């Protein structure tokens, strides 16, 4: 246990000293901070547009934004988690796995009385703590921003939902961070180690959902997951691609956490995100041989 926490502390220290992934962390926090403001600005403008439409007598329909949920403004955060957060997590994971090999200290570390499983678990624990801190900061900023927009502090129920969304985000990001570690462990070249999980991310976020929904790649940047096709070949393809479309499952589960009643919560989507993280952790911790941690790393 002491060794595990020592490795985790070392991981946190090393991550703090590595400036490259910090750039992505700052970018992620900044986008989470402004996303609620962008949502509020847009919503205000849309309401103004509606009032103008009503004043000019073009419609007698009710304002579609009259009764939006308090956490409506948190929806944009979902897409920034998928776009920036996951890539940030991958970069953190890859850098963590390659750090010792780049510094030529991997062989030295493995001379100490530590099991490979403990070493890897400690590293993952360090990354998980770092990601938890980043996500917690993002959620606090979101809570404060939405409270300001709503003109008062959020109530207990939306706060609990926001905390649950933070938890889901953490699980999602941990899955990608561990994928980054996996690439860093098995690939010797840093460029390839970064590139492979990035390509896998692009496939998971864009290509697989497109096969199941016939949607255009850019429409997948919408924070709300697109429904699978119900007819034709895409209907059958969606059976295969839906469980693998981690990004779309995260979006679905996030919408459920932020808006839906408990009875309508998309448990299956949340389970897919969790299983993805668990499989990645199991593969890295239980099946990585010591030989893979030795040797050098190249640009």
């Amino acid at each position, binding site marked *: 246990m002491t060794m595990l926490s020592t490795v985790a502390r070392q991981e946190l220290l090393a991550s703090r000293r590595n*400036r*490259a*992934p910090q*750039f*992505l962390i700052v*970018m992620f926090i900044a*986008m989470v901070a402004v996303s609620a403001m*962008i*949502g509020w*600005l*847009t*919503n205000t*403008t*849309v309401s*103004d*547009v*509606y009032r*103008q*439409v009503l004043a*000019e007598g*073009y*419609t007698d*329909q009710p304002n*579609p*934004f009259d009764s939006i949920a308090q956490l409506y403004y948190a929806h*944009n955060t979902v*897409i*920034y988690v998928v*776009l*920036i957060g996951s*890539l940030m997590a991958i*970069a953190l994971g890859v*850098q963590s796995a390659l750090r010792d090999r780049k510094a030529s200290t991997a062989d030295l570390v493995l001379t100490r009385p530590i099991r490979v499983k403990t070493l890897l678990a400690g590293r993952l624990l360090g990354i998980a703590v770092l990601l938890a801190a980043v996500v917690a900061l993002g959620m606090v900023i979101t809570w404060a921003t939405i409270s300001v927009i709503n003109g008062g502090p959020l109530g207990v129920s939306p706060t609990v939902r926001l905390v649950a969304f933070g938890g889901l985000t953490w699980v999602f990001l941990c899955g990608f961070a561990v994928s980054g570690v996996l690439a860093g462990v098995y690939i010797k070249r*840093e*460029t*390839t180690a*970064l*590139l492979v999980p*990035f*390509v896998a991310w*692009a496939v998971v976020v*864009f*290509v697989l959902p*497109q*096969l199941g929904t*016939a949607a*255009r*790649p*850019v429409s997948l*940047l*919408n924070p709300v997951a697109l429904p699978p*096709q119900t*007819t*034709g*070949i*895409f209907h059958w393809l969606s059976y295969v691609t839906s469980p693998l479309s981690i990004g779309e499952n995260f979006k679905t589960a996030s919408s459920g956490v932020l808006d839906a009643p408990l009875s309508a919560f998309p448990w299956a989507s949340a389970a897919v995100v969790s299983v993805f993280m668990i499989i990645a952790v199991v593969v890295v911790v239980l099946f990585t041989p010591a030989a893979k941690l030795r040797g050098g790393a*190249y*640009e």
Partner: protein
Amino acid sequence: MNSVKVFAAKELLDLRRNRVVWILAACLSIAVLVSVVVASLAYRTQVTDYRAYVDALAASGSAVVPAAPQLYPLTLLRGAIEYLEIIGALFAVVVGYATIAREKSRGTMLLILTRAGGAKVFIAGKLVGLGVFWALLSIGLILVSALSLALVGSAGLGASAWGRLGIAAVAAWLYLMFWTALAAGVTAFLKRPSTALVLMLGVWLLVVLVIPQIGDTMDPDNQVPGGLFAALAIQKSDEVAVLAHFSTYESIRNALEASSIEKLYERITFAFLGIKDKYNQQPAALIWPAMQRYTWTVLVLVAGSFAFALTAATRTRLQR
């Protein structure tokens, strides 16, 4: 000039021998192919649904024949262009980064800099080599798209369509070269190549995904599924009249989108391929005046990225 050619030829040889480059090119081609196949199949599903609807109407004794769905083959390339915008740019960043990082990590940089011409000739040769590589790949991707349209979409392409595909290939080449030259420049500028890669990935995220996403989010019509104005049953002319009251907001939103080279590339390509409804079936001569401003901006940005790469690659920086 001869030294530039030597470096360009060496760059092409390195790219040809690099397995990662082949994998990237294959991934991009597969993504393009998948998107055309998906669009073609989606169109076929539409036609099947239409026929079933017409048969059902006929069976019920109705004499009404609804309008058949229209197929404009080049519009099926929308997904392919979007993949080039997103994944193509990412790969261009990696290729640009790798071209400098490779020499640094192999320890060949110092040897190269002993040659006549030094750093400037080295980077110019690299950019020429990469230019040839992306030109070949752009042409290849357009051919893959055309072949997919013919085989899956059963679409015949006339001379005009080929001309438009040629414009799309040139636009793709410029767009990919922008990213490659910028990444090469940043990698030459910074001491640690891995820092340059992560920094460039951040820039890619911001320019390709975040800024356009903010622009889309700020679009009032995107706030309701199916469109706000459609939900309120408002005609297009009335929509324009209403939005005229929000011209400042719209200008800010448009400026935000236009600040991303990705959106400029998209607007130019969508216009010439007729993917944007407004330009569908319009002759290229009529589209050009509307796209001239965007084209010049893209050219300036590409020239800027080249100038940055040439300026950043000094002997002192490359030796670090």
